[in-house]
Protein backbone atom coordinates (compact mmCIF):
# COMPACT_ATOMS: atom_id res chain seq x y z
CA UNK A 1 0.00 0.00 0.00
CA UNK A 2 1.55 3.30 -0.99
CA UNK A 3 1.01 6.64 0.65
CA UNK A 4 -1.67 7.79 -1.80
CA UNK A 5 -3.74 4.72 -1.19
CA UNK A 6 -3.44 5.26 2.52
CA UNK A 7 -4.51 8.87 2.10
CA UNK A 8 -7.48 7.67 0.10
CA UNK A 9 -8.52 5.44 3.00
CA UNK A 10 -8.13 8.30 5.46
CA UNK A 11 -10.27 10.45 3.18
CA UNK A 12 -12.90 7.75 3.40
CA UNK A 13 -12.64 7.79 7.18
CA UNK A 14 -13.34 11.55 7.09
CA UNK A 15 -16.42 10.86 5.04
CA UNK A 16 -17.51 8.35 7.65
CA UNK A 17 -16.92 10.79 10.50
CA UNK A 18 -18.71 13.63 8.73
CA UNK A 19 -21.75 11.50 7.98
CA UNK A 20 -21.77 10.15 11.55
CA UNK A 21 -21.64 13.61 13.09
CA UNK A 22 -24.38 15.01 10.85
CA UNK A 23 -26.53 11.99 11.61
CA UNK A 24 -25.95 12.29 15.32
CA UNK A 25 -26.97 15.95 15.39
CA UNK A 26 -30.13 15.59 13.30
CA UNK A 27 -31.14 12.20 14.67
CA UNK A 28 -30.66 13.59 18.17
CA UNK A 29 -33.16 16.37 17.53
CA UNK A 30 -35.68 14.19 15.73
CA UNK A 31 -35.21 11.38 18.24
CA UNK A 32 -35.93 13.75 21.11
CA UNK A 33 -39.20 14.71 19.44
CA UNK A 34 -40.04 11.02 18.99
CA UNK A 35 -39.21 10.24 22.63
CA UNK A 36 -41.31 13.11 23.94
CA UNK A 37 -44.18 12.08 21.68
CA UNK A 38 -43.92 8.56 23.05
CA UNK A 39 -44.60 9.82 26.59
CA UNK A 40 -47.12 12.43 25.51
CA UNK A 41 -50.41 12.56 27.47
CA UNK A 42 -52.28 12.59 24.15
CA UNK A 43 -53.04 9.12 22.89
CA UNK A 44 -52.98 9.90 19.13
CA UNK A 45 -49.51 11.43 19.49
CA UNK A 46 -48.26 8.39 21.38
CA UNK A 47 -49.78 6.11 18.77
CA UNK A 48 -48.24 8.04 15.89
CA UNK A 49 -44.80 7.93 17.50
CA UNK A 50 -44.94 4.22 18.21
CA UNK A 51 -46.10 3.38 14.69
CA UNK A 52 -43.27 5.50 13.34
CA UNK A 53 -40.84 3.46 15.42
CA UNK A 54 -42.38 0.15 14.36
CA UNK A 55 -42.35 1.16 10.72
CA UNK A 56 -38.69 2.21 10.77
CA UNK A 57 -37.35 -0.57 12.95
CA UNK A 58 -39.09 -3.21 10.85
CA UNK A 59 -37.14 -2.49 7.71
CA UNK A 60 -33.44 -2.60 6.86
CA UNK A 61 -31.43 0.59 6.58
CA UNK A 62 -30.70 -0.25 2.95
CA UNK A 63 -34.38 0.09 2.07
CA UNK A 64 -34.54 3.45 3.84
CA UNK A 65 -31.47 4.52 1.91
CA UNK A 66 -33.21 3.64 -1.34
CA UNK A 67 -36.38 5.50 -0.41
CA UNK A 68 -34.41 8.57 0.65
CA UNK A 69 -32.31 8.46 -2.50
CA UNK A 70 -35.12 8.06 -5.04
CA UNK A 71 -37.91 9.69 -3.06
CA UNK A 72 -36.76 13.35 -3.29
CA UNK A 73 -36.70 12.96 -7.10
CA UNK A 74 -40.41 12.37 -7.10
CA UNK A 75 -40.97 15.52 -5.09
CA UNK A 76 -39.25 17.53 -7.77
CA UNK A 77 -35.66 17.63 -6.57
CA UNK A 78 -33.54 17.07 -9.63
CA UNK A 79 -30.31 15.83 -8.18
CA UNK A 80 -29.99 14.44 -4.71
CA UNK A 81 -26.48 14.80 -3.29
CA UNK A 82 -25.27 11.50 -1.86
CA UNK A 83 -24.44 13.08 1.49
CA UNK A 84 -27.95 14.51 1.77
CA UNK A 85 -29.67 11.21 1.01
CA UNK A 86 -27.38 9.27 3.33
CA UNK A 87 -27.85 11.73 6.19
CA UNK A 88 -31.61 11.69 5.67
CA UNK A 89 -31.84 7.89 5.75
CA UNK A 90 -29.53 7.52 8.74
CA UNK A 91 -31.33 10.31 10.58
CA UNK A 92 -34.71 8.68 10.09
CA UNK A 93 -33.44 5.29 11.19
CA UNK A 94 -31.44 6.50 14.18
CA UNK A 95 -34.24 8.79 15.35
CA UNK A 96 -36.50 5.76 15.74
CA UNK A 97 -33.88 4.01 17.87
CA UNK A 98 -33.05 7.13 19.87
CA UNK A 99 -36.76 7.70 20.44
CA UNK A 100 -37.11 4.25 21.92
CA UNK A 101 -33.94 4.47 24.01
CA UNK A 102 -34.77 7.89 25.43
CA UNK A 103 -38.37 7.01 26.13
CA UNK A 104 -37.08 4.27 28.38
CA UNK A 105 -34.77 6.73 30.12
CA UNK A 106 -37.52 9.31 30.64
CA UNK A 107 -39.84 6.69 32.05
CA UNK A 108 -37.19 5.31 34.36
CA UNK A 109 -37.00 8.57 36.30
CA UNK A 110 -38.57 7.74 39.66
CA UNK A 111 -42.32 8.15 39.83
CA UNK A 112 -42.01 10.25 42.96
CA UNK A 113 -40.04 12.87 41.04
CA UNK A 114 -42.96 13.34 38.65
CA UNK A 115 -45.36 13.62 41.55
CA UNK A 116 -43.13 15.98 43.51
CA UNK A 117 -42.85 18.28 40.50
CA UNK A 118 -46.60 18.28 40.22
CA UNK A 119 -46.97 19.08 43.92
CA UNK A 120 -44.66 22.07 43.47
CA UNK A 121 -47.13 23.40 40.95
CA UNK A 122 -44.96 22.95 37.86
CA UNK A 123 -46.71 22.85 34.53
CA UNK A 124 -46.22 19.92 32.20
CA UNK A 125 -43.44 21.60 30.19
CA UNK A 126 -41.68 22.90 33.30
CA UNK A 127 -41.82 19.49 34.93
CA UNK A 128 -40.29 17.89 31.84
CA UNK A 129 -37.56 20.46 31.30
CA UNK A 130 -36.64 21.28 34.90
CA UNK A 131 -37.12 17.98 36.69
CA UNK A 132 -37.39 14.95 34.47
CA UNK A 133 -35.04 15.59 31.53
CA UNK A 134 -31.96 16.53 33.60
CA UNK A 135 -32.28 13.27 35.50
CA UNK A 136 -33.10 11.28 32.37
CA UNK A 137 -30.00 12.74 30.71
CA UNK A 138 -27.74 11.05 33.23
CA UNK A 139 -29.40 7.71 32.63
CA UNK A 140 -29.39 8.25 28.89
CA UNK A 141 -25.71 9.00 28.37
CA UNK A 142 -24.30 5.43 28.33
CA UNK A 143 -26.82 3.95 25.86
CA UNK A 144 -26.61 7.07 23.70
CA UNK A 145 -22.85 6.78 23.39
CA UNK A 146 -23.37 3.07 22.73
CA UNK A 147 -25.75 3.84 19.91
CA UNK A 148 -23.28 6.32 18.39
CA UNK A 149 -21.11 3.28 17.72
CA UNK A 150 -24.03 1.79 15.80
CA UNK A 151 -24.35 4.98 13.77
CA UNK A 152 -20.70 4.89 12.78
CA UNK A 153 -21.06 1.26 11.71
CA UNK A 154 -24.31 1.97 9.87
CA UNK A 155 -22.67 4.69 7.76
CA UNK A 156 -20.82 1.89 5.95
CA UNK A 157 -24.07 1.02 4.22
CA UNK A 158 -24.30 4.49 2.65
CA UNK A 159 -21.91 3.28 -0.02
CA UNK A 160 -24.23 0.57 -1.31
CA UNK A 161 -27.40 2.12 -2.72
CA UNK A 162 -26.36 5.76 -2.66
CA UNK A 163 -22.69 5.52 -3.46
CA UNK A 164 -21.55 7.98 -0.80
CA UNK A 165 -17.75 7.81 -0.62
CA UNK A 166 -16.95 6.73 2.92
CA UNK A 167 -14.43 4.35 4.41
CA UNK A 168 -15.77 1.01 3.21
CA UNK A 169 -16.55 2.44 -0.23
CA UNK A 170 -13.00 3.68 -0.66
CA UNK A 171 -11.62 0.39 0.61
CA UNK A 172 -13.74 -1.41 -1.97
CA UNK A 173 -12.47 0.85 -4.74
CA UNK A 174 -8.87 0.19 -3.72
CA UNK A 175 -9.53 -3.52 -3.56
CA UNK A 176 -11.15 -3.51 -6.99
CA UNK A 177 -8.02 -2.12 -8.57
CA UNK A 178 -5.44 -4.11 -6.63
CA UNK A 179 -7.27 -7.18 -5.34
CA UNK A 180 -5.67 -7.38 -1.95
CA UNK A 181 -8.82 -7.72 0.17
CA UNK A 182 -7.16 -8.61 3.45
CA UNK A 183 -4.91 -5.56 3.30
CA UNK A 184 -7.50 -2.92 2.41
CA UNK A 185 -10.50 -4.27 4.27
CA UNK A 186 -8.23 -5.07 7.18
CA UNK A 187 -7.09 -1.45 7.26
CA UNK A 188 -10.67 -0.24 6.89
CA UNK A 189 -11.72 -2.49 9.77
CA UNK A 190 -8.83 -1.16 11.85
CA UNK A 191 -9.91 2.43 11.19
CA UNK A 192 -13.51 1.64 12.11
CA UNK A 193 -12.25 -0.06 15.23
CA UNK A 194 -10.14 2.98 16.09
CA UNK A 195 -13.25 5.16 15.87
CA UNK A 196 -15.69 2.82 17.60
CA UNK A 197 -13.70 1.13 20.32
CA UNK A 198 -12.96 4.26 22.40
CA UNK A 199 -16.65 5.11 22.28
CA UNK A 200 -17.61 1.59 23.37
CA UNK A 201 -15.18 1.80 26.27
CA UNK A 202 -16.45 5.24 27.21
CA UNK A 203 -20.04 4.00 27.18
CA UNK A 204 -19.12 1.08 29.41
CA UNK A 205 -17.29 3.35 31.84
CA UNK A 206 -20.23 5.73 32.02
CA UNK A 207 -22.55 2.84 32.69
CA UNK A 208 -20.40 1.53 35.50
CA UNK A 209 -20.25 4.96 37.07
CA UNK A 210 -24.00 5.34 36.79
CA UNK A 211 -24.59 1.94 38.37
CA UNK A 212 -22.25 2.81 41.21
CA UNK A 213 -24.03 6.13 41.78
CA UNK A 214 -27.39 4.41 41.78
CA UNK A 215 -26.19 1.67 44.10
CA UNK A 216 -24.97 4.27 46.60
CA UNK A 217 -28.17 6.29 46.47
Amino acid sequence: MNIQQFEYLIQGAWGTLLLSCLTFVFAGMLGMAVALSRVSPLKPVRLAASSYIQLIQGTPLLVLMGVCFYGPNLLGMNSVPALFAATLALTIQSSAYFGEIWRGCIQSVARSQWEAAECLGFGRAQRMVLVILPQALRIATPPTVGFMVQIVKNTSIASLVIGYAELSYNAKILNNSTFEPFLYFGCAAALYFAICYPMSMWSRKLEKRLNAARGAA
Partner: protein
Amino acid sequence: MNYQFDFESVLSYWPMFLEGAGTTLQLSFWATLIGFVLGVLCAVARSSGPAWLRKIVGAYVEIIRNTPLLVQSYCLIFGMSSIGLRMPIMVGAVLALVINIGAYTCEIVRADIESIHKGQLEAAECLGLTPTQVYLHIILRPAIERVYPSLTSQYVLLMLVTSILSAVGANELFGVSNSVQANTFRNFEVFIVLWVVYLVLSALVRGVFWLVGQFVFVRRRKLGTAL
Protein backbone atom coordinates in the same frame (compact mmCIF):
# COMPACT_ATOMS: atom_id res chain seq x y z
CA MET B 1 -45.71 16.22 -7.83
CA ASN B 2 -46.60 14.76 -11.19
CA TYR B 3 -45.10 11.34 -10.86
CA GLN B 4 -47.11 8.37 -12.05
CA PHE B 5 -46.71 5.53 -9.61
CA ASP B 6 -46.53 2.18 -11.30
CA PHE B 7 -46.64 -0.67 -8.84
CA GLU B 8 -48.13 -3.10 -11.32
CA SER B 9 -45.01 -3.65 -13.36
CA VAL B 10 -43.03 -4.10 -10.13
CA LEU B 11 -45.51 -6.46 -8.54
CA SER B 12 -45.59 -8.64 -11.65
CA TYR B 13 -42.18 -9.80 -10.45
CA TRP B 14 -43.70 -11.27 -7.32
CA PRO B 15 -42.26 -14.76 -7.81
CA MET B 16 -38.78 -13.23 -7.64
CA PHE B 17 -39.64 -11.31 -4.47
CA LEU B 18 -41.05 -14.47 -2.95
CA GLU B 19 -37.94 -16.44 -3.76
CA GLY B 20 -35.76 -13.66 -2.40
CA ALA B 21 -37.76 -13.55 0.81
CA GLY B 22 -37.33 -17.32 1.09
CA THR B 23 -33.58 -16.95 0.74
CA THR B 24 -33.53 -14.18 3.33
CA LEU B 25 -35.40 -16.38 5.80
CA GLN B 26 -33.13 -19.31 5.05
CA LEU B 27 -30.03 -17.19 5.66
CA SER B 28 -31.48 -15.83 8.89
CA PHE B 29 -32.52 -19.27 10.09
CA TRP B 30 -29.07 -20.83 9.77
CA ALA B 31 -27.30 -17.72 11.03
CA THR B 32 -29.61 -17.57 14.06
CA LEU B 33 -29.26 -21.25 14.89
CA ILE B 34 -25.49 -21.55 14.52
CA GLY B 35 -24.85 -18.04 15.82
CA PHE B 36 -26.85 -18.76 18.97
CA VAL B 37 -24.81 -21.89 19.72
CA LEU B 38 -21.56 -20.06 19.01
CA GLY B 39 -22.63 -17.09 21.12
CA VAL B 40 -23.61 -19.19 24.12
CA LEU B 41 -20.38 -21.19 23.94
CA CYS B 42 -18.42 -17.93 23.79
CA ALA B 43 -20.37 -16.54 26.73
CA VAL B 44 -19.56 -19.64 28.78
CA ALA B 45 -15.92 -19.47 27.74
CA ARG B 46 -15.73 -15.78 28.52
CA SER B 47 -17.25 -16.03 31.96
CA SER B 48 -15.66 -19.24 33.22
CA GLY B 49 -12.99 -20.41 30.81
CA PRO B 50 -9.22 -20.33 31.36
CA ALA B 51 -7.63 -16.89 31.19
CA TRP B 52 -6.14 -17.28 27.70
CA LEU B 53 -9.47 -18.39 26.24
CA ARG B 54 -11.24 -15.47 27.90
CA LYS B 55 -8.80 -13.09 26.27
CA ILE B 56 -9.27 -14.60 22.82
CA VAL B 57 -13.05 -14.57 23.07
CA GLY B 58 -12.97 -11.03 24.47
CA ALA B 59 -10.87 -9.83 21.53
CA TYR B 60 -13.22 -11.58 19.09
CA VAL B 61 -16.27 -9.93 20.62
CA GLU B 62 -14.72 -6.45 20.70
CA ILE B 63 -13.40 -6.63 17.13
CA ILE B 64 -16.71 -7.81 15.71
CA ARG B 65 -18.84 -5.39 17.70
CA ASN B 66 -16.74 -2.40 16.73
CA THR B 67 -16.53 -2.96 12.98
CA PRO B 68 -19.38 -2.91 10.45
CA LEU B 69 -20.83 -6.14 9.07
CA LEU B 70 -20.24 -4.88 5.53
CA VAL B 71 -16.48 -4.69 6.03
CA GLN B 72 -16.48 -8.05 7.82
CA SER B 73 -18.23 -9.72 4.92
CA TYR B 74 -16.01 -8.02 2.34
CA CYS B 75 -13.02 -9.26 4.28
CA LEU B 76 -14.36 -12.78 4.57
CA ILE B 77 -15.86 -13.33 1.13
CA PHE B 78 -13.33 -11.47 -1.01
CA GLY B 79 -10.51 -12.53 1.27
CA MET B 80 -11.40 -16.21 1.04
CA SER B 81 -11.54 -16.12 -2.72
CA SER B 82 -8.23 -14.26 -2.91
CA ILE B 83 -6.43 -17.10 -1.15
CA GLY B 84 -8.15 -19.61 -3.40
CA LEU B 85 -10.77 -20.86 -0.95
CA ARG B 86 -13.94 -21.10 -2.98
CA MET B 87 -17.28 -21.75 -1.39
CA PRO B 88 -20.91 -21.28 -2.38
CA ILE B 89 -22.09 -17.76 -1.68
CA MET B 90 -24.79 -19.00 0.69
CA VAL B 91 -22.18 -20.71 2.85
CA GLY B 92 -20.02 -17.61 2.89
CA ALA B 93 -22.98 -15.40 3.72
CA VAL B 94 -24.10 -17.63 6.59
CA LEU B 95 -20.52 -17.76 7.86
CA ALA B 96 -20.22 -13.96 7.85
CA LEU B 97 -23.54 -13.61 9.67
CA VAL B 98 -22.68 -16.31 12.20
CA ILE B 99 -19.36 -14.68 13.05
CA ASN B 100 -21.18 -11.37 13.48
CA ILE B 101 -24.20 -12.48 15.48
CA GLY B 102 -22.13 -14.84 17.63
CA ALA B 103 -20.33 -11.86 19.16
CA TYR B 104 -23.58 -10.00 19.90
CA THR B 105 -25.21 -13.10 21.40
CA CYS B 106 -22.13 -13.70 23.53
CA GLU B 107 -22.24 -10.19 24.95
CA ILE B 108 -25.96 -10.33 25.74
CA VAL B 109 -25.79 -13.74 27.44
CA ARG B 110 -22.53 -13.06 29.27
CA ALA B 111 -23.83 -9.88 30.87
CA ASP B 112 -26.68 -11.87 32.35
CA ILE B 113 -24.55 -14.82 33.45
CA GLU B 114 -22.33 -12.44 35.39
CA SER B 115 -25.25 -10.80 37.15
CA ILE B 116 -26.47 -14.06 38.67
CA HIS B 117 -26.93 -13.91 42.40
CA LYS B 118 -24.29 -15.70 44.47
CA GLY B 119 -26.92 -17.18 46.75
CA GLN B 120 -28.32 -19.12 43.81
CA LEU B 121 -24.98 -20.82 43.25
CA GLU B 122 -24.51 -21.58 46.93
CA ALA B 123 -28.01 -23.01 47.16
CA ALA B 124 -27.35 -25.21 44.15
CA GLU B 125 -24.14 -26.44 45.72
CA CYS B 126 -25.95 -27.19 48.97
CA LEU B 127 -28.45 -29.27 47.03
CA GLY B 128 -25.54 -31.38 45.83
CA LEU B 129 -25.71 -30.50 42.16
CA THR B 130 -22.60 -31.22 40.14
CA PRO B 131 -20.81 -28.26 38.53
CA THR B 132 -22.22 -29.22 35.11
CA GLN B 133 -25.73 -29.37 36.49
CA VAL B 134 -25.26 -26.04 38.18
CA TYR B 135 -24.07 -24.53 34.94
CA LEU B 136 -26.89 -25.92 32.84
CA HIS B 137 -29.86 -25.51 35.16
CA ILE B 138 -28.94 -22.66 37.48
CA ILE B 139 -26.84 -20.40 35.33
CA LEU B 140 -27.38 -20.92 31.62
CA ARG B 141 -31.03 -21.75 31.25
CA PRO B 142 -32.43 -18.98 33.43
CA ALA B 143 -29.94 -16.54 31.90
CA ILE B 144 -31.16 -17.31 28.39
CA GLU B 145 -34.74 -17.14 29.57
CA ARG B 146 -34.16 -13.67 31.03
CA VAL B 147 -32.41 -12.28 27.97
CA TYR B 148 -34.81 -13.92 25.52
CA PRO B 149 -36.54 -10.61 24.67
CA SER B 150 -33.19 -8.91 23.90
CA LEU B 151 -32.10 -11.91 21.87
CA THR B 152 -35.34 -11.75 19.91
CA SER B 153 -34.73 -8.10 18.98
CA GLN B 154 -31.16 -8.91 18.05
CA TYR B 155 -32.23 -11.75 15.75
CA VAL B 156 -34.94 -9.65 14.11
CA LEU B 157 -32.20 -7.12 13.43
CA LEU B 158 -30.10 -9.97 12.04
CA MET B 159 -32.85 -10.83 9.58
CA LEU B 160 -32.89 -7.19 8.45
CA VAL B 161 -29.14 -6.91 8.03
CA THR B 162 -28.97 -10.01 5.83
CA SER B 163 -29.78 -7.40 3.16
CA ILE B 164 -26.18 -6.22 3.45
CA LEU B 165 -25.00 -9.57 2.14
CA SER B 166 -26.43 -8.59 -1.24
CA ALA B 167 -23.29 -6.46 -1.55
CA VAL B 168 -21.16 -9.59 -1.74
CA GLY B 169 -23.49 -11.35 -4.14
CA ALA B 170 -26.01 -13.18 -2.00
CA ASN B 171 -29.25 -13.37 -3.94
CA GLU B 172 -31.61 -12.66 -1.07
CA LEU B 173 -34.57 -10.30 -1.06
CA PHE B 174 -32.55 -7.12 -1.46
CA GLY B 175 -30.24 -8.64 -4.07
CA VAL B 176 -33.21 -9.87 -6.07
CA SER B 177 -34.77 -6.43 -5.98
CA ASN B 178 -31.71 -5.03 -7.75
CA SER B 179 -32.55 -7.04 -10.83
CA VAL B 180 -36.19 -5.99 -10.62
CA GLN B 181 -35.02 -2.36 -10.54
CA ALA B 182 -32.82 -2.98 -13.54
CA ASN B 183 -35.73 -4.53 -15.44
CA THR B 184 -38.41 -1.98 -14.62
CA PHE B 185 -36.55 1.27 -13.80
CA ARG B 186 -39.14 1.71 -11.05
CA ASN B 187 -36.65 2.12 -8.23
CA PHE B 188 -38.86 3.95 -5.80
CA GLU B 189 -41.75 1.52 -6.15
CA VAL B 190 -39.37 -1.40 -5.67
CA PHE B 191 -38.17 0.09 -2.39
CA ILE B 192 -41.71 0.63 -1.17
CA VAL B 193 -42.53 -3.01 -1.96
CA LEU B 194 -39.35 -4.08 -0.17
CA TRP B 195 -40.32 -2.01 2.85
CA VAL B 196 -43.66 -3.79 3.12
CA VAL B 197 -42.15 -7.24 2.59
CA TYR B 198 -39.51 -6.63 5.26
CA LEU B 199 -42.17 -5.41 7.70
CA VAL B 200 -44.05 -8.66 7.15
CA LEU B 201 -40.86 -10.68 7.54
CA SER B 202 -39.90 -9.01 10.81
CA ALA B 203 -43.40 -9.58 12.18
CA LEU B 204 -43.03 -13.20 11.12
CA VAL B 205 -39.65 -13.64 12.81
CA ARG B 206 -40.97 -11.97 15.97
CA GLY B 207 -43.97 -14.33 15.91
CA VAL B 208 -41.79 -17.40 15.52
CA PHE B 209 -39.63 -16.32 18.45
CA TRP B 210 -42.68 -15.74 20.59
CA LEU B 211 -44.01 -19.19 19.70
CA VAL B 212 -40.69 -20.90 20.38
CA GLY B 213 -40.52 -19.06 23.71
CA GLN B 214 -43.94 -20.42 24.64
CA PHE B 215 -42.71 -23.97 24.17
CA VAL B 216 -39.18 -23.72 25.48
CA PHE B 217 -39.81 -21.68 28.60
CA VAL B 218 -42.65 -23.72 30.02
CA ARG B 219 -42.11 -22.41 33.53
CA ARG B 220 -43.05 -18.88 32.59
CA ARG B 221 -46.18 -20.11 30.83
CA LYS B 222 -47.35 -22.37 33.63
CA LEU B 223 -46.57 -20.50 36.78
CA GLY B 224 -45.88 -16.97 35.76
CA THR B 225 -43.12 -17.03 38.33
CA ALA B 226 -40.71 -14.18 38.54
CA LEU B 227 -37.47 -14.83 36.76
